[in-house]
């Protein structure tokens, strides 16, 4: 089982490897990937450097090119694929039929991983993409229960990758327009959810308020710490109740499911967070490396160590974690 870690820059990439990642995924410095944030991601030169470093250490480089090509910018997505393939990417993480087609035709030797943004949640959808683009892996959206993951693992013609830890996207990825509804920019079209340029915090007599494009997402009492106004994690009103209507600020943590994922034959566990610091990546990678090694050595005896949970809990959004959709009760 592969441990796949995120990196927003070279220091994060190196630290991921030093702490036990088998592979690292990155994006380029433009809107061709779903973490199109200022100060993040790789130039062509840095990408080549990343590939050299990873290959020296016998590790793999995955490059996410997982937004949807605009009709006036197809060359930008093609160029991203050229840059990744020609600079040593072992795998391309793709969501759009246009980019899958281009990559499969031009660079058949570079693995094609179906991005979570393609939203393939069932066997027929996997077969559709596999029939056309000969996939090497499918990244599953965070909407399946562990039972459904196992069912799919038994029948899929393509190895599976699942999200293991990090910020929890609660909607079927690639099919969520909540962000463009409020701001005009969505992960599909602009490579970002709840983009930072629309965010505003303001201290008011009623408390600290966080807004996205002027819409009030949350209001915090003096003893609460104000979070980023990701729109699906705000507090809203339904009738007379004010609560986290869609989801609390929380992170996904599937350590407890590791033996089941291993038994199901899941090929890779993915850590979310290309926007996170090298220190964050180091700490998460270290815990997951230990857990995977222990689980692979003695799957029957595997138990989640309390210090792992504590260590990951400290890093989690709202310092709490959940099994998310893997666990039926969450649903």
């Amino acid at each position, binding site marked *: 089982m592969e441990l796949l870690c995120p990196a927003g820059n070279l220091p994060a990439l190196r630290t991921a490897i030093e702490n036990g990642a088998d592979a690292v995924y990155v994006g380029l410095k433009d809107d061709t990937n779903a973490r199109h944030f200022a100060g993040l991601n790789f130039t062509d030169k840095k990408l080549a450097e990343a590939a050299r470093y990873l290959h020296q250490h016998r590790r793999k480089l995955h490059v996410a090119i997982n937004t949807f090509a605009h009709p006036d910018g197809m060359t930008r997505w093609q160029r991203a694929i050229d840059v990744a393939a020609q600079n040593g990417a072992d795998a391309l993480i793709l969501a759009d039929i246009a980019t899958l087609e281009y990559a499969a035709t031009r660079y058949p030797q570079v693995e094609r991983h179906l991005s979570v943004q393609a939203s393939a949640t069932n066997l027929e*959808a996997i077969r559709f993409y596999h029939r056309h683009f000969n996939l090497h892996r499918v990244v599953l959206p965070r909407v*399946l229960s562990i039972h459904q993951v196992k069912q799919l693992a038994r029948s899929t013609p393509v190895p599976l990758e699942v999200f293991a830890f990090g910020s929890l996207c609660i909607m*079927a990825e690639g099919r969520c*327009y*909540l962000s463009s509804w409020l701001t005009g920019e969505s992960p599909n079209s602009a490579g970002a959810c709840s983009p930072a340029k629309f965010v505003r915090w303001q201290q008011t007599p009623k408390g600290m308020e966080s807004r996205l494009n002027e819409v009030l997402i949350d209001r915090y009492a003096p003893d609460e710490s104000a979070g980023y106004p990701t729109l699906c994690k705000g507090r809203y009103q339904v009738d007379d109740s004010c609560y986290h209507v869609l989801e609390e600020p929380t992170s996904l943590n599937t350590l407890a499911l590791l033996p089941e994922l291993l038994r199901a034959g899941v090929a890779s566990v993915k850590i979310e967070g290309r926007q996170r610091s090298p220190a964050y990546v180091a700490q998460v990678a270290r815990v997951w490396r230990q857990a995977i090694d222990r689980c692979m050595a003695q799957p029957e005896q595997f138990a989640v160590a309390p210090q792992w949970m504590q260590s990951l809990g400290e890093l989690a959004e709202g310092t709490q974690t959940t099994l998310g959709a893997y666990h*039926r009760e969450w649903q």
Partner: protein
Amino acid sequence: MQYSLGPVLWYWPASELESFYQQAANSSADIVCLGEAVCSKRRATTYPGWMTLVRELAASGKQVVLSTLALLQSPSELKELQRYVENGEFLIEANDFGTVNMAAERRLPFVAGPTLNVYNVDTLQLLVKEGMTRWCLPVEMSRDWLRLLMQQCEERGLRQRFEIELLAYGHLPLALSARCFTARSENRAKDACETCCINYPTGRPVKSQEGQQVFVLNGIQTLSGYCYNLGNDLLSMQNLIDIVRLSPQDASTLQMIDRFRANEQGQAPLMVAQGNDCNGYWRKVAGMTLAS
């Protein structure tokens, strides 16, 4: 320009659904698209029930399309889906690439629904090859984006090979989750939801702490807080859009078709209001905007 009714996204009891479609049969809609597109737990109307409705509408002279689930997560859902795909009489609307695959492997034509990620000409070309005869745009697509895309379809000789449909009225389907938000709003787990969404025939409104309606909850689906209304944008759709789709909100949506028809040339403008209606996506700004 033709007018269509989209599938009822809300969960209505069978009797209400029947009465709605009896009225729809007498409405001015050219095309009626129907079927459960949101949640497989909604079983007030099952396959035979949908087929009865479909046949009655077809007999009344409507072109009928069978819509299908947008989020497919289990083998049992795929098995049920297969019945719809193999119905043998009526065109289906695919809302997931799994459904596209099922139709294509059986060499059946299909409508590409609005929840498929279709943003460029290469994707359209593949879908046409797979059997797509009509494409309903993703809700976030703007007129500018579509215009450019259609030029490219023209250049590749694709433009005449499928019809273009635009969802132009109703609360917009924006997201799908494994979680049921209606059940959550009643403090229930999804496994014990008792399909409580049937108690909210037009969804549950979600407001910001300042009272702005931001979303509407509909089971596992989240819709826009405002009603999309492109009734005053119909002139800008000429030579671009073949079919204007209205998403049923309640029975009054049937009269809305007539009002759209009456305003095709801009001669009978519709009343729209800030904080209630929006047209942003088509105008290439935030979806919630109402631009004049």
